[in-house]
């Protein structure tokens, strides 16, 4: 159970792989040596900083500090979801339509897991709460991004079909039924693939990390299973939540399509 501690020397040996790739890229005039080295350097700096930061946060074991870190992570995810869309809402809705479901799903799932399956002592123990919130947040953010992209790209294409249904007396959610179905599916698809392929086609990251760190494979599999369930729930909640919120905002109380609330990334 004792993890094998890595020395700087061993890491430097692995870094040779990146340097060799960069040298080969230069030799073959592929032109990717610069972005490759920049990305590798960024990764090292970011992870070391996060490690140092988390060491401090773990040492404090304060519910306020833990809460603040999680809040910061959620805010960053909201910004990501809002800025990834080619077409988007104006004003605060741009971030709210994805950010609110992502935040609610992450907090809900993380708290549920802390209260039932994991039960660390104290329950806000940052060693459990922060990585858990982080992994759920990543999946929820991806799901919401994909789902919103599905709504926003199909709503313009399907405009005539939506309006035909509204004109015939359908309410707004019925008129959007095809779009809702497709967008929620697009958001949940990566999580479903991940579950279906887990252990057969790919070795899930958590399990790999735990096994490498010296944990029993069955114990790490149990952790992975728990996390997969949490991710599936989080991904679905974030997809469905953001899709319904987007449809609600794309229509009004009189069941009218309000496409003018959607703007393109480059002006108008």
């Amino acid at each position: 159970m004792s993890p094998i501690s890595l020395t700087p020397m061993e890491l430097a040996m692995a870094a040779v792989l990146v340097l060799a790739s960069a040298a080969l890229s230069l030799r073959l005039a592929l032109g990717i040596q610069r972005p490759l080295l920049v990305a590798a350097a960024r990764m090292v700096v970011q992870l070391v900083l996060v490690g140092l930061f988390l060491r401090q946060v773990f040492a404090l074991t304060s519910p306020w500090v833990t809460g603040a870190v999680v809040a910061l992570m959620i805010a960053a995810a909201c910004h990501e979801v809002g800025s990834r869309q080619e077409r988007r809402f104006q004003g605060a809705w741009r971030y709210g339509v994805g950010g609110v479901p992502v935040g609610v799903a992450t907090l809900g799932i993380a708290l549920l897991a802390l209260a039932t399956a994991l039960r660390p002592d104290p329950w806000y123990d940052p060693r459990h709460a922060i990585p858990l919130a982080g992994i759920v947040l990543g999946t929820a953010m991806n799901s919401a991004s994909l789902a919103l992209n599905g709504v926003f790209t199909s709503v313009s294409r399907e405009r005539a079909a939506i309006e035909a249904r509204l004109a015939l007396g359908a309410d707004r959610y019925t008129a959007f039924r095809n779009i809702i179905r497709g967008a929620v599916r697009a958001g949940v698809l990566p999580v479903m693939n991940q579950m279906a392929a887990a252990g057969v086609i790919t070795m899930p990251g958590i399990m790999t990390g735990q096994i490498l760190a010296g944990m029993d494979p069955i114990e790490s599999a149990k952790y992975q299973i728990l996390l997969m369930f949490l991710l599936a729930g989080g991904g679905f909640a974030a997809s469905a939540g953001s899709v319904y919120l987007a449809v609600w905002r794309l229509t009004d109380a009189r069941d009218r399509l309000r496409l003018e609330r959607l703007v393109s990334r480059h002006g108008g």
Partner: protein
Amino acid sequence: MVNGLCGLIVAASNYPLYVHEPESPVPRGLRARLSLRPSIRPLANTTLTDTCSSLIVNGLHGRLAGPFDLGIEGGECVALSGPSGVGKSLLLRMIADLEPARGRVELDGVDRDRMPAPAFRRQVTYVAADAGWWADIVADHMAYPERARALLPGLGLADALFEAPVATLSTGQRQRLALVRAISQHPRFLLLDEPTSALDPEATARVEALLARLREQGTGLLVVTHDAAQAVRIATRRLRVTPGGLEDETP
């Protein structure tokens, strides 16, 4: 009795109903409907609408067009004409509550805002010139498949089209099927945006005949058309849409 009730509704209404302005004659459609009444028989698979309906548009205006004032009764056909871009489609869409607008629209004296928008649109149904389709097969768009199927022969459409994929249909077939889709829901008023724009003369004549039968059954029609001869054939009143409102063109 029905007509007496109709008069009562009109008399009680505070809004100018076009047909009851003293200087305008009783519309031909209304007269025709009254004189035809004893001989009216319900169509197969349809019910005879025997109530007097009224649709009153009062001061309706959007950002770019209006205000529009208009009153239509069941059994009337009002043709709308005007240059492209003047707001004819916009007017129909505003009446159907598909476009935000200021002003009042009343169905049988009840403000449309007092009923859910979907319920209102099932009574006052807008059909676009090139209406959209949301499923693969024609039949999956029909709320009342038997009623819809019964309407196909009258419009010169083969029964097999009912089960056909929408993607295989011609523009003209889609246009008539969109009409079938709306009519089979038995709306009280139909707002038709160039309903024969993609049709040959024979199909156009069939659509016009169907519209005439709908009028006999008491359906009110508001039809945008660029064809002046068609307006003369189908309409009891002809109105011209201008940026500032409607002008009566009925001789």
